């Protein structure tokens, strides 16, 4: 069967073009997708229209098809060497599709072409990181549903009964609606990460670092070297230095400008470049749960600035892009999790890693590690760099712990020299009556989260003032560095070792792409407190940020809900211009999201909370459905009887007619077949055969007298009433049996 009809040609071309443009969008962006659509659609149309007029055996396109296939094959091997396997395969797939298109002589090849298109769509979904890819998915769903329908109907085509456009649309709507429903309620399982290795566009190497790594290799494994660095730190407290947003090594680099990623930073103004005050995505993370990615750990606070004692880096060589940073403690394998970070902007050289990194797969030859386990690359991390980290997830009493081991460093208990005496007093008041350090830490965290407001303006208003006292006792509002600093210092006043951590709060899961979106605004500071016998407890004193959830969010509806909430909060925080075109488009997008959330949230609620009711209703519906054939005619018979009596009672029409109509309806309900044009005489003649004793002639006479005569006969009406009651009293089952036997 050739693709003979125009609808097949047009829709097949469209669906192929949509798949091609989706793939182009995922790899090259919107412009490439648009150009792809404009090119592939007419080309497909032209080729198919030409091919359908040729025979397979003598087709002039055959040689072109074979040549295209050969070229695709010839390009495949060099492309593997130049690019990567996936790209080479996709290009080969493209050539294969063109080759196939040139020989589309039957429906099997059309289906094969659709399969290639579907594979392209899958490949695009692997690479795409934007929610707009869903638009391509929906376009593909609509076009493929109509294409499949046309291909199916092609050999059965009936010009008298064409497939109407509204029916085509109906099937497309069914498909899209079902897909969206499945997508919403589909549980997301933790990623398997079997054999996954990130593809990165950049590679990092430094001969000096590599040489250093080789020289120090003899000093032991990474853990031993970190121990050695900690030994050095424990000897003395480092001197305070001038606040700086960047380390010396970063001085001539440009990238994301959050000061908290340097070796030292000023809590009053950690954003000297103002890079943090926008909603730009700086990185994406693929993980099973929200995480706090650590960039720097600070231990020394002078009242205004935080400094890190761990200024020395130990260099570690990677073995084919992979390195084990610590041995997994026995019995902890189930707590090892993996995440992947893909940078969307240039960043500083900190390799963001959730505590505690166990293994790193990084596109480079060497990395640096400091005494606090923080990782650094040999240079500025560029956009499109991707790396994978395996980390050890520690959880006790439903809280996350960064590390278990503790090594006493003087900085962990250090307090600023001019510490306001009201701060220790406040800490004592908050923790009054609590004995364990764990409870005290949580109490302080809770107090800050509930009594203080998050405010970016504080960055600019707090210049040249003692920040903590003003934050804690006067303004009671500030940015995250205030919260974190206040908590860390209050913990230290209670003799609980603590440290301030900067990094990214990766909690904003885009439910459409499945990636956690790390915005510029997510550059963040939080606190870790050491609890004796438990480890380094992660504390989030800033109410604006969620405490990283330990629960996996397995339902899309929930993810959508959280994402929209987060977006709304970001908009509110950044106070964006509501009249700008971007803001209007954003608002429309938000409305779309919110409506999706409304449906999704209710679906989720329904599935989570109302499932016993739903199950009960389903059972009732099932029973009702199964018993309906038994119940319905009996119920109808009862309704007929009630209706007849009501009409006789209420209306002034002849009773005989009502009884006769009632008898007729009861008999029809029991399956008696009465053909059109049957006279009342022949009709009533059949009733005695059903086992009712009556005189048909008398009944006919009564009927005629009542309707066409001038006299009434009570006895005649009584006969009808008796017959009606007898028919009803017989019951549906018996009446049905008798009508059936009459038919036979």
């Amino acid at each position, binding site marked *: 069967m050739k693709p003979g009809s125009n609808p097949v040609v047009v829709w097949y071309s469209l669906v192929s073009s949509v798949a091609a443009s989706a793939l182009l969008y995922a790899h090259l962006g919107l412009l490439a997708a648009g150009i792809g659509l404009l090119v592939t659609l007419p080309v497909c149309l032209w080729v198919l229209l030409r091919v359908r007029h040729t025979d397979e055996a003598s087709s002039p396109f055959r040689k072109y098809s074979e040549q295209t296939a050969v070229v695709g094959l010839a390009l495949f091997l060099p492309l593997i060497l130049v690019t990567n396997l996936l790209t080479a395969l996709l290009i080969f797939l493209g050539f294969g599709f063109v080759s196939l298109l040139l020989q589309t002589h039957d429906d099997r090849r059309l289906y094969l072409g659709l399969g290639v298109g579907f594979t392209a769509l899958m490949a695009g979904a692997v690479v795409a990181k934007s929610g707009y890819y869903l638009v391509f998915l929906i376009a593909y769903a609509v076009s493929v549903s109509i294409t499949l329908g046309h291909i*199916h109907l092609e050999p059965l085509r009936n010009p008298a009964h064409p497939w109407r456009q509204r029916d085509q649309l109906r*099937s497309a709507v069914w498909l899209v609606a079902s897909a969206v429903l499945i997508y919403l309620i589909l549980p997301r399982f933790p990623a398997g990460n079997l054999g996954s290795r990130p593809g990165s566009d950049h590679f990092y190497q430094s001969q000096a670092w590599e040489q250093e790594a080789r020289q120090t290799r003899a000093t032991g494994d990474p853990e031993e070297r970190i121990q050695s660095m900690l030994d050095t730190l424990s000897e003395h407290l480092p001197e305070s230095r001038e606040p700086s947003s960047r380390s010396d090594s970063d001085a001539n680099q440009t990238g994301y400008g959050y000061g908290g990623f340097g070796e030292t930073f000023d809590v009053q103004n950690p954003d000297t470049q103002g890079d943090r005050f926008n909603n730009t995505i700086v990185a994406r993370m693929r993980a099973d749960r929200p995480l706090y990615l650590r960039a720097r750990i600070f231990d020394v606070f002078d009242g205004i600035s935080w400094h890190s004692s761990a200024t020395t880096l130990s260099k570690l060589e990677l073995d084919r892009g992979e390195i084990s940073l610590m041995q997994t403690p026995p019995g902890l394998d189930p707590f090892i999790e993996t995440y992947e970070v893909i940078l969307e902007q240039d960043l500083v050289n900190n390799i963001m890693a959730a505590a505690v990194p166990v293994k790193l797969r990084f596109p480079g030859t060497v990395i640096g590690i400091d005494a606090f386990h923080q990782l650094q690359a040999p240079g500025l991390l560029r956009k499109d760099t991707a790396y994978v980290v395996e980390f050890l997830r520690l959880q006790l009493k439903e809280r996350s712990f960064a590390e278990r081991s503790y090594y006493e460093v003087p900085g962990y208990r250090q307090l600023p020299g001019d510490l306001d005496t009201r701060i220790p007093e406040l800490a004592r008041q908050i923790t009054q009556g609590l004995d364990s350090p764990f409870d005290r830490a949580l109490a302080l965290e809770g107090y800050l989260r509930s009594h203080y407001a998050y405010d970016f303006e504080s960055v600019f208003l707090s210049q040249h003032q003692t920040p903590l006292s003003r934050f804690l006792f006067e303004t009671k509002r500030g940015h995250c560095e205030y919260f974190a600093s206040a908590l860390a210092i209050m913990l230290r006043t209670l003799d609980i070792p603590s440290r301030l951590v900067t990094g990214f709060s990766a909690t904003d899961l885009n439910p459409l792409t499945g990636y956690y979106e790390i915005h510029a605004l997510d550059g963040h500071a939080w606190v870790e407190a050491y609890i004796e016998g438990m480890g380094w407890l992660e504390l989030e004193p800033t109410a604006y940020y969620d405490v990283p959830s330990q629960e996996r969010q397995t339902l899309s509806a929930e993810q959508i809900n959280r994402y929209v909430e987060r977006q709304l909060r970001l908009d509110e925080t950044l106070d964006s211009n509501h009249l700008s075109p971007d803001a209007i488009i954003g608002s429309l997008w938000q409305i779309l999201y919110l409506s999706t959330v409304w449906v999704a949230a209710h679906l989720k609620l329904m599935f989570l909370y109302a499932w016993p009711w739903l199950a009960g209703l389903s059972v009732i519906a099932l029973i009702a459905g199964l018993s309906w054939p038994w119940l319905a005619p009996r119920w109808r018979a009862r309704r007929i009887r009630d209706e007849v009596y009501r009409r006789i009672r209420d209306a002034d029409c002849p009773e005989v007619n009502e009884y006769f109509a009632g008898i007729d309806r009861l008999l029809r309900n029991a399956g008696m077949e009465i053909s059109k044009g049957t006279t009342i005489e022949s009709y009533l003649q059949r009733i005695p055969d059903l086992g009712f004793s009556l005189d048909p002639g008398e009944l006919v006479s009564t009927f005629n007298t009542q309707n066409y005569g001038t006299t009434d006969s009570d006895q005649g009406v009584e006969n009808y009433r008796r017959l009606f009651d007898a028919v009803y009293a017989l019951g549906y089952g018996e009446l049905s049996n008798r009508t059936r036997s009459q038919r036979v």
Partner: protein
Amino acid sequence: MKIQSGSSSIFSPQTLDSLQRWINLHRVLWVLTLACFFVAWNRGLALLYGVFSLSLALLLISQVMPRWQLRGIQVERRFPPIMSAGEEIEVVYRLSGSGHRYHTRIIDDIPFADGPASGFLPVWETSHEITSRVCCEHRGLFTLDPLRLTSAYPFGILSHERCLSSPGEPVRVLPRLYELGELPTPQHANQNSEGDLPIAQRDGQEQFLSIREYVHGDSLRHIHWRASARLQRLVVKEYERDDRPMLLLALDCRAAFNKGEGNRTTFEFAISLAASVIRQATREGMSSVLIAEHGKRLETAIPAYQSDLYEVLAQLAELQDSGNLSSRELIEEAIHRYPQANLVVGFRLRDDPLIPAFPPHVTHIDFEMDDESFHFPLRHTKAPRMNRFGNRLSYPVSSGHSMEGLLQ
């Protein structure tokens, strides 16, 4: 998805065939869906979960919607009242069901037709009729198979089939009829010369028997005008006359006589010839007697000018090759019971023995079946020619030649 088979293939043709049968769009889509889910799960990619949802929805709808479209459909099947082998007939299917129904296909494996009758409706509502034309290939009494309703709505990925049980009413297909031409003039008992078949004459040795409906060819002299006026249709008087030609036809229903395959066998040809000869005989005013033995005896007398031959054709339709007596044996036995028969028709295979000579007033039509031509229907054979040996007329019958005008 067609796998090219070739001599160099590492797979045997059987393996390739079974692979081709196994690989269909539905299964391929399942494989793609599972692959999609695996990658989505392994990489934790939400957009790939979206693609997975799309393909799962495609499969789900393909599973559910066809079933939904076929629910509660009733089909009434109507055949023409009389069907004969070789005829093209119209079968009407009346579908009824509630609401709109999409992509409904009806398939009827009619046992006597050359192929299944089918019809397709992209959309219909409440009730609809489909007419399908099929060619009746086989005579006989058939019990109809259940009707099959299929739907692959809306994507054609998966087709659901529903069998509608039929009431099991048998359907009869009459044997194929040929226009053989006029029967050869029989020899009369009191005549030694050949001559035309005498028509019934008022003053002949005839007795009024009954009236019957006028058929084309009846003499206007025989129209019973008074009865015609009363019945408002033309009827003719029928006479019984002693010297009227009578046909005796004996069919061979032995399995040994049944050579060939399908509906092109010596037995089927013989039945068609018998039916055609009887029809011709009644047309020509002969009474006929059909005798056969197919496990049980069949002996049917057909009066001259019988317009309705349904009964005898129905009997012929149901004949099976399960008899023990040859045409020759039946004739030898029956000729004594029907001494007035002056036209005897028999069937035999080419190598079967001839019936011994009949008396001179009996004309013997001997249909000699060329069994080799039935065994090898594609083999070229010469056009058969009638041979006359005294009062025996031998008509060779071969598979590859038309029976039309055989007696001409």
